[in-house]
């Protein structure tokens, strides 16, 4: 006969009730799948019931190491009544120590979680054992209870009318452990401490300039002058200070990232925080550190090198600078509302406009639109200045290489940044007023952003590296006491890089689903970049030939630059080879490559520039001993920091992953076990590398107060900046009597031809110009 229909129904209902009570238990991890922590057990309604009160009894306030405690978990209230078949269930999670069950009424899921069993669901109180940890921990308990409307009538699923509740408790060991602070709080504190230190330093420098008049009456005009100055030298200093400040901020963020990645499966940062850290690290380093530092050098040195009194458009120049700090505030705004941009600095659509991206992304885009405006104005300014304000006798092919590099960088920036601006405005409109440029379901294009971004993004990385080429050319030539080898081929190589940069960006999109033909073309053009870069490296090396190399700190950094940049260039040659790129794309190999060219290239170049031009800018020599220590510490830790990343990338470590797992005997992960050790090495080296920059900052502060006075030409360079005093007067050259400038320098030429003879480039420019007179000369 078997069971009657009724009893079968009862068993099924019983199982169902038990299942529905176990199911929420499995979700009640306080740190689990998103949303569960707040919504809790949403199978019986999404909110905690007030009529049920859960309690955890038997907990000590302070536990003893390894002692076992009997814990009573219970609840009162709710629909559970005496006489019901089922009364309730529970789920207890504990952060540390280990749980054990006492009887058949509860079961152990793992050492952190227990729940009731089917035998235990006819009671409202359970006893389990918790063994305290062996060390000091702040232990949290999270209890979920379910008060069962145990009528078991089977109608409506049997769980109708259940109510649930939650209780939390936390205890500590004999020694109270401080809770880990929110990383964003730490970041903000560090930034604020840096800002305070910066302002103390500035006040001290102000004090030292004239200790007798250290009062508000002299301070107010002094600071007002800095805030409103249109002098290219002061704006250059402001850019440099801003750049160094954000280099520090970006560095702190990098350290957060490295702490998180030091060991596999780390939970120092949540994935959400990690995503914001790497996004802001990238944006800060490129737009708020590298670009301002370059602009600082350009502002300081270009007018001096071409013998101009100032930039062509000084007020526009001040405006370009003052857009930057406010753009920076916008970019960081998001983190104060708990949701900084989390899109990666590349901000790929459609993620960047999707609901899942943080609210801060809107302000992040807005801030970058301001930076686009700033860069455009800077571009106009430098192109105009270099085109029309060169000293008499300085043809295009007589410009110092640093000026050439700034010229080419600004041409690239000026031609590429509108694409980025357009993309950002589209993203901003999509996010704010609901346009649909990147809303795929409304007909948007998933690849449009990538095209716009990388059309800008690839020239942009050359924009930040080409000025470093300029610095290295100056430093190598001066240090070797030679003129740079192959001046003309250096210029053509830089111009070549500038042109090729616009047709290679497709290699960022090798895996994007772009047409294979286009991908093949960009593979070829990307390979081509190696040719002009190779010319430059060989020319620098040849510059040393037959000279007498003077070892100064800036020489060391320049030699270090050549070494690391060559490695970065060679590792870059792996990407155009598509078969390799399909594996290495978006891996740590990419991270290693672009840090080798951007840190080993741009940062090394600019540090070399700081040591080279600091005496000119401040009139004080930098300390060579500290400089050499900075170089040695920085160079070694730098290589220990980025070289192992190549290997991690080949193994399969993915960029933008908040953690990684190694394969052990028990569990499969994505990386071999050695990866953990390498990551730890990288983290330690990262801290050492960042620390080495404090030597530079200390050197700059100490030397600007106590350093030796610098002569006009400490290194023996030939270009105009060494002609003026250190520091240079304002205006930098000549004087203005109300109508015209007089006393501007004139360039002589040691070569055996007429100084004013137009070069090849000049003749080409002349052809593009409208002739002054209608003479027949221009037509042929």
């Amino acid at each position, binding site marked *: 006969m078997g069971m009657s229909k009724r009893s079968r129904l009862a068993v099924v209902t019983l199982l169902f009730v038990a299942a529905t009570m176990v199911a929420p238990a499995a979700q009640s991890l306080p740190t689990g799948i998103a949303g569960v922590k707040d919504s809790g057990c949403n199978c019986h309604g999404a909110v905690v019931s007030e009529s049920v009160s859960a309690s955890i009894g038997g907990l000590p306030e302070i536990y003893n190491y390894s002692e076992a405690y009997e814990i009573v978990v219970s609840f009162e209230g709710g629909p559970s009544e005496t006489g019901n078949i089922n009364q309730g269930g529970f789920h207890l999670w504990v952060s540390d120590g280990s749980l054990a069950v006492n009887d058949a009424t509860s079961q152990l899921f793992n050492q952190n979680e227990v729940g009731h069993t089917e035998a235990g669901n006819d009671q409202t109180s359970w006893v389990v054992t918790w063994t305290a940890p062996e060390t000091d921990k702040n232990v949290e308990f999270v209890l979920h209870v379910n008060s069962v409307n145990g009528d078991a009538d089977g109608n409506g699923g049997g769980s109708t009318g259940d109510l649930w509740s939650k209780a939390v408790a936390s205890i500590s060991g004999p020694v109270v452990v401080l809770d880990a602070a929110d990383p964003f709080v730490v970041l903000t504190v560090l930034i604020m401490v840096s800002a305070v230190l910066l302002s103390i330093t500035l006040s001290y420098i102000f004090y030292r300039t004239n200790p007798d008049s250290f009062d508000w009456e002299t301070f107010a005009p002094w600071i007002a002058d800095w805030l409103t100055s249109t002098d290219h030298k002061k704006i250059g200093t402001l850019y440099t200070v801003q750049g160094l400040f954000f280099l520090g901020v970006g560095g702190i963020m990098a350290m957060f990232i490295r702490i998180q990645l030091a060991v596999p499966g780390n939970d120092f940062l949540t*994935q959400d925080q990690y*995503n914001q850290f790497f996004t802001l690290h990238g944006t800060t380093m490129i737009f708020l550190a590298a670009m301002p530092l370059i602009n600082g050098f350009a502002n300081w040195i270009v007018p001096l090198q071409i013998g101009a009194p100032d930039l062509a458009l000084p007020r526009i120049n001040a405006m370009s600078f003052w857009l930057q700090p406010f753009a920076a505030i916008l970019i960081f705004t998001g983190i104060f509302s708990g949701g900084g941009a989390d899109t990666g600095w590349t901000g*790929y659509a*459609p993620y960047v406009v999707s609901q*899942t991206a943080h609210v801060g992304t809107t302000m992040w885009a807005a801030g970058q639109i301001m930076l686009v405006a700033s860069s455009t104005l800077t571009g106009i300014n430098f192109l105009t200045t270099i085109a029309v304000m060169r000293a008499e006798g300085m043809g295009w092919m007589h410009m110092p290489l640093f000026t050439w590099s700034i010229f080419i960088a600004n041409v690239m920036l000026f031609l590429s940044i509108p694409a980025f601006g357009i993309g950002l405005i589209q993203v901003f409109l999509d996010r704010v007023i609901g346009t649909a440029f990147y809303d*795929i379901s409304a007909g948007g294009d998933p*690849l449009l952003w990538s095209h716009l971004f990388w059309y800008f993004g690839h020239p942009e990385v050359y924009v930040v590296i080409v000025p470093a080429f300029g610095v290295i050319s100056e430093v190598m030539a001066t240090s*070797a*006491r*030679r*003129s*740079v*080898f*192959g*001046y*003309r*081929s250096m210029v053509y190589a830089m111009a070549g890089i500038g042109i090729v940069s616009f047709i290679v960006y497709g290699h960022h999109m090798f*895996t994007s*689903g772009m047409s294979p033909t286009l991908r*093949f073309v960009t*593979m070829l053009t990307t390979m*081509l970049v*190696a*040719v002009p870069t*190779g*010319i430059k490296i*060989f*020319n620098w*090396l040849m510059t*040393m*030939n037959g*000279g*007498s*190399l003077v070892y100064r700190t800036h020489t060391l950094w320049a030699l270090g630059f050549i*070494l690391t940049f*060559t490695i970065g260039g060679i590792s870059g040659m792996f990407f155009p*080879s*598509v*078969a390799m790129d*399909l*594996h290495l*794309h*978006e891996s740590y190999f990419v991270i290693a490559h672009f840090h080798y060219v951007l840190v080993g290239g741009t940062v090394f170049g600019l540090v070399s520039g700081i040591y080279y031009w600091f005496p000119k800018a401040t009139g004080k020599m930098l300390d060579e001993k500290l400089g050499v220590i900075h170089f040695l510490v920085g160079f070694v830790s730098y290589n220990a920091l980025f070289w192992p990343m190549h290997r991690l990338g080949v193994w399969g470590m993915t960029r*933008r992953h908040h953690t*990684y*797992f190694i394969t052990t005997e028990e569990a*499969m992960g994505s990386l071999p076990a050695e990866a953990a050790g390498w990551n730890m090495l990288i983290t330690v080296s990262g801290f050492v590398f960042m620390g080495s920059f404090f030597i530079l900052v200390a050197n700059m502060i100490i030397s600007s107060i106590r350093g030796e006075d610098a002569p006009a030409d400490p290194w*023996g*360079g*030939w*270009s*105009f900046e060494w*002609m003026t005093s250190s520091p240079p007067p304002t205006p930098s050259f000549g004087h203005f009597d109300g109508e015209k400038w007089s006393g501007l*320098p*004139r*360039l*002589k*030429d*040691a*070569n055996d031809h007429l100084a004013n003879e137009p070069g090849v480039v000049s003749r080409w420019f002349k052809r593009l110009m409208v002739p002054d007179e209608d003479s027949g000369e221009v037509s042929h």
Partner: protein
Amino acid sequence: MLWSIVVSVIAFGWLFHHSFWFRSEDGKELSNVDGLAIGVFPLHNDDMRLEVTWTILPFILIIWLTYVSWAPIDNMWAPLDDDEYHGSECDYASAAYTGSNNVMDSKGMVTSDCYHLIEITGQQWFWSFDCLELDESLCYTATDTLEVYGSVPVLGLKKGETYLALMESEDVTHAPWFLDLFTKEDVLQGQQTLLWLPITDSGDSMILCAEYCGDAHSVMSGVLAVHN
């Protein structure tokens, strides 16, 4: 790889030689071969033949590198129904059908007789695999619980067979990275992308997401289980 070592040996050897050979000596008058003086454009220091040499030689090198990587690129982005690499979709009813019969040459390029179609869908934040009409012995899907990643989808494929994945995304851009197959391709919303999966070795390996897609990007993973 070989060429990168050759190039770096040349460049670094040159760097070290020149930087030590031509260093200045303390107290010695510095030479001034190029007439360096402030405000004077110095003498040109160049050699057309040398400069042309190191323009032409790298150029030849990269043309050659492009040429040698041409075949692998064709292999990894083989067009559909092109007889050179993967033939056409397998005709399971045909009497001649014996599977893909993958053959790997010395360069690591795989050719096969025919291929099987599967489907991969990316979604925030998990992968869905679909074997379409393939037989259980060729392709299966399952879920597995990994200690560190939690519950992940499993794509079971057979050794020696070649698969073509038709891929699309439900929301934002993702990219499955098949760690042991050394390949990946983006999946886009509203646009199908293709990825060749020629299977030559058995064993389990990870599939990760390589295109940043938001919160749980780093744990958006799967397992490729290759059976014999």
